[in-house]
């Protein structure tokens, strides 16, 4: 066998093994971080209590918007609620709550009990709109800026660490 072939075979094997080695210490869990820095998609989310729709351009008015997908039946949404309440104090930030696959009575009850952090509330009764945002389980939150670019995505309940991150970005 020629020397070149031998060297090539060995280099190839080393390459494969080192990729295996590198992958061992990587976090292989899935996320939708690919959407970050992309523009917000078009959407049509109906008002919580009227027959009107929120559209993409409605969010241009705000410096920063946090789109939060929540539901009264979702337990982790309860745990992140205090964080949302704190964020609602921020001047540069408006929180857009999207009520996800929920009944209105239950949602109202939920907000009455825990407070309403949302500047506006929309509803997504069958979840179809959420797919446009790449949502795969709630709670999920998306931070966008004035130019409607996605700055950050939060999967799962917001933590106080996330709170600091958001405050840092918007100020």
């Amino acid at each position, binding site marked *: *066998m020629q020397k070149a072939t*031998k060297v090539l*075979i*060995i280099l190839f*094997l080393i390459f*494969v*093994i080192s*990729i*295996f*080695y*590198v*992958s*061992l*210490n*990587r976090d*292989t869990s*899935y996320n939708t971080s690919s959407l970050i820095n992309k523009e917000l998609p078009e959407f049509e989310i109906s008002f919580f209590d009227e027959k009107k729709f929120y559209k993409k351009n409605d969010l241009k008015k705000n410096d920063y918007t946090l789109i939060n997908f929540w539901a009264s*039946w979702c337990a982790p949404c309860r745990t992140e609620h205090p964080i949302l309440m704190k964020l609602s104090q921020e001047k540069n930030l408006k929180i857009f709550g999207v009520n996800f*696959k929920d009944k209105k009575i239950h949602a109202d009850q939920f907000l009455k009990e825990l407070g309403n952090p949302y500047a506006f509330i929309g509803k997504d009764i069958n979840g179809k709109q959420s797919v446009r945002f790449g949502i795969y389980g709630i709670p999920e939150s998306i931070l966008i800026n004035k130019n409607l670019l996605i700055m950050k995505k939060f999967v799962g309940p917001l933590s106080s660490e996330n709170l600091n991150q958001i405050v840092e970005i918007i100020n």
Partner: protein
Amino acid sequence: MLSNLGNSILFLCVILSLSIIYFANQNLKTPEGKISKIIYQFSLIQSCLILVCFFTLIAAFIVSDFSLINVYQNSHTSKPILYKISGTWGNHEGSLLLWAIILTIFSFLFLVYNNNHPKKFRLLTLIVQNILILGFLFFILFNSNPFSSIVPVPNEGLGLNPILQDPALAIHPPLLYIGFVGSSIYFSAAIASLISNYSSNSFSLSIKNWVLVSWCFQSLGILVGSIWAYYELGWGGFWFWDPVENASLLPWFAMTALFHSLIVFERRNIFYFWVIILCLMTFILSVMGTFLVRSGILNSVHTFASDPSRGLYILSFLSLMIFVSIFLLFKKYKRENYNINQNSKETFILINNWFMMFYLATVLLGTIYPIFTDAITNNQISVGPPFYNTIIIPIAVIFLLFMAVGPRVKWIKNKFEDLKIYTFILIGSLLINFLITYFLESYSILSNLIIISALFLISSSLIDGIKEFKKKRLDYARIISHASFGFLVLFIGLNDVFSIEKDYNIKLGETKKFENYSIKFQTLNLKEFSNYKAVVGELEILNTDTNKKNILSPEIRIYDNPQTLTYEASIKSSFLRDYYLTMSNIDRSDYYNIKFQKKPLMIWIWISVVMIVIGGFLRIFTNAKSN
């Protein structure tokens, strides 16, 4: 107590392995022609001890000794006795012990059954095999010890995932492990043969039955795994091209290529290095599969607890094996002179190997490619059934045609005299396929081709069989295996084409109708069992053409230990078709989602695989007779 016992035995096994290596090495230097008795004795003791060690662990599971972490994590007092026992090898640590057992017992048996081969070759095989055994014993002792104890001793165990509490899954790991851990012995033999320059074709005699044994068990293991996936995972399919399934298929391709090329090596004394490469490759692929599955670097349908430190150990072991093999191969490789005629059996066996390598490469690539894209481009992709089906199925058509013609070709040189017969068989296959298409419904060109080529393989194998029978030289093993492989492809093809699948959201009391069937959701009952509660639906499937009724009762089970929800499919099997029904609740609604499937000829798919394996066992018996 059991913890100490188990650890001491493992420790003893390490010492025994080291002594066997030492004595074998001493024995190599002596001019005496025979292997010294002490090596046989030590090997035997080693095999017995490792078995005792395994029984100790089984005993710990049976008496629910929760002072062992392994028992605590994988068992529960309320579990049925069968699953307490099968829980022993249903987890990572226990299954490694099973690895060690098979490595050890195969080592002993190989030593005993190969008297008429050179002493140096046998001793070297033993040494290499014992190095493998040591590797696994260290892994067990220092990383994945099933006998690690826990203080304070818990009162109750955490239980075994209910999906794994299943008779098929109880026997699946042992079968599969005999298959791919069994391949270790010809890995060792190949290394020994390279070192001792034992390259004549009598080398093939020393390994061919071991290859066949491991191949038969590997096939059975894959079969049992598929059957389990079919009735337990609830999607109604039996093969998902999932990384874990692929990991069991890769060594299978290598073994299949190996025992075919061994025929040529034995007969014509060519392809020695190719045979060696395949021997090495089979076990390396087995260990690589274990690495992929256990290290958790792949996402898979089948859950396995994973841990990077295990991955690192197996990866180091794997690298060592690969580089030693490569080093020896490079050092010993010599060009061989071939004299192969185009129309000879050799050529056709090469063609078999060619296709096996193509399948192997495709499946291997599909399995590990996502790791590469993720590591290099940070892009996660999924490689699933559509990829494999697109690449593999069209090529399978050509493969089946070669497989039909190959066995009839003579050694060294053949003249194609029976072209007429082939045309005849081909036209017959086309006609049968036409009848299927005509009387049932239309289907795609590719399925047509697959079915035609499968029929072609079946009929030419059977005609071969008749011819050989007349000449009284019937080779049962090959005819059965090849014809059954044809049947397997045929049934899978027909099953795929004529399956019906319907998906409904249905309320209690409702009826859904489609084609010539109606499904009625009759009752819904809550039942209590010893370790789970079940919501049992009762649905009536009515075939309006024949007026035949079938009641299917799928379940939603809620297990206590650990708290898990599972969906049990209800299956009514018959010779012509399976009815398959799963039911699941929809959150926040009183509708249930049901999925009904009619899967024709399911049983025959399983039977075909069993027949293929029977062919393999027959070959082992005929080999044993002729030796």
